[in-house]
């Protein structure tokens, strides 16, 4: 396993997680969560779990992001924290 | 409230990190999770199911009832979403 690539992925995942809960715009938060899901998918592909990575890329990063965007567009983008 | 939540999160995280001291090393081939039940799946999957992909054979063949339950969960969630988001017409319009 390539150790530096592993560390880069873990760093990006943690940065995306922190950014997704601190940004003050809900649509941006949802988009950052989609990026988080794709980084997580890369991480699983690198751990050898290719089936889980496929499922994550299609189900969680695809359908989950679509559901969240639809919910934000149906309600509001404004948030206090 | 925010500082209290942060303190609670840090304390729980510290306890969980204390728990990792007794975990097997990361990626250890001789960890208990890799030595008890999974060698059966790895060695018998070709004989039992004639499928080279072990994940598929375990998902659809050895643990097919598990997948059936998962489908039930998805069906229940879909029914709950439809029932919650349906716009009710008629008398009780204010209920959404």
């Amino acid at each position: 396993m390539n150790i530096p690539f592993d560390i880069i992925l873990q760093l990006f995942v943690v940065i995306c997680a922190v950014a997704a809960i601190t940004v003050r715009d809900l649509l941006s938060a949802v988009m950052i969560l989609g990026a988080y899901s794709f980084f997580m998918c890369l991480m699983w592909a690198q751990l050898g779990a290719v089936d889980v990575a496929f499922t994550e890329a299609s189900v969680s990063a695809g359908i989950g992001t679509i559901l969240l965007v639809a919910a934000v567009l149906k309600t509001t983008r404004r948030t206090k924290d | 409230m925010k500082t209290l939540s942060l303190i609670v999160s840090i304390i729980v995280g510290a306890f969980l990190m204390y728990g990792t001291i007794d975990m097997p090393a990361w990626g250890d081939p001789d960890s208990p999770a890799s030595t008890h039940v999974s060698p059966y799946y790895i060695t018998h999957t070709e004989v039992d199911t004639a499928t080279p992909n072990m994940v598929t054979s375990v998902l659809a063949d050895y643990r097919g009832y598990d997948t059936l339950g998962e489908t039930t969960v998805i069906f229940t969630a879909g029914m709950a979403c439809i029932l919650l988001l349906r716009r009710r017409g008629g008398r009780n319009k204010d209920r959404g």
Partner: protein
Amino acid sequence: MDFIIAKYNYWIYITLMMIGFYAMIAKTNLIKKIIGMNIFQTAIILFFVSISYKRGGATLPILTDADAHGGHVIDVAQYLNPLPHVLMLTAIVVSIATLGVALAIAIMMYRKYHTLEEDEILKAIK
């Protein structure tokens, strides 16, 4: 130093999990709480997937041609552990189901109270 190299992956998973936990208990916006729940679930799934990893040249849990038709004894240490992968496939799909139901409840609350902030909803209920 060996101890840190053997365990630091677990600490990163715990950090992710605590980020999600903090978002769930501290944020007042409902969508932010749902995002925190998603991060929490993903961190737990990542922990389970990492249990199945084996250092030292183990490949994907798909049998090669030589092992599938050779008839000789299969070396277990050569393949990753397939069982956590299967269980986590189920967990991902269930997490999407819970996300859908949570978002449906959030949309319903917005239709009734016209806000997503928890404190304003509590004020409107009183």
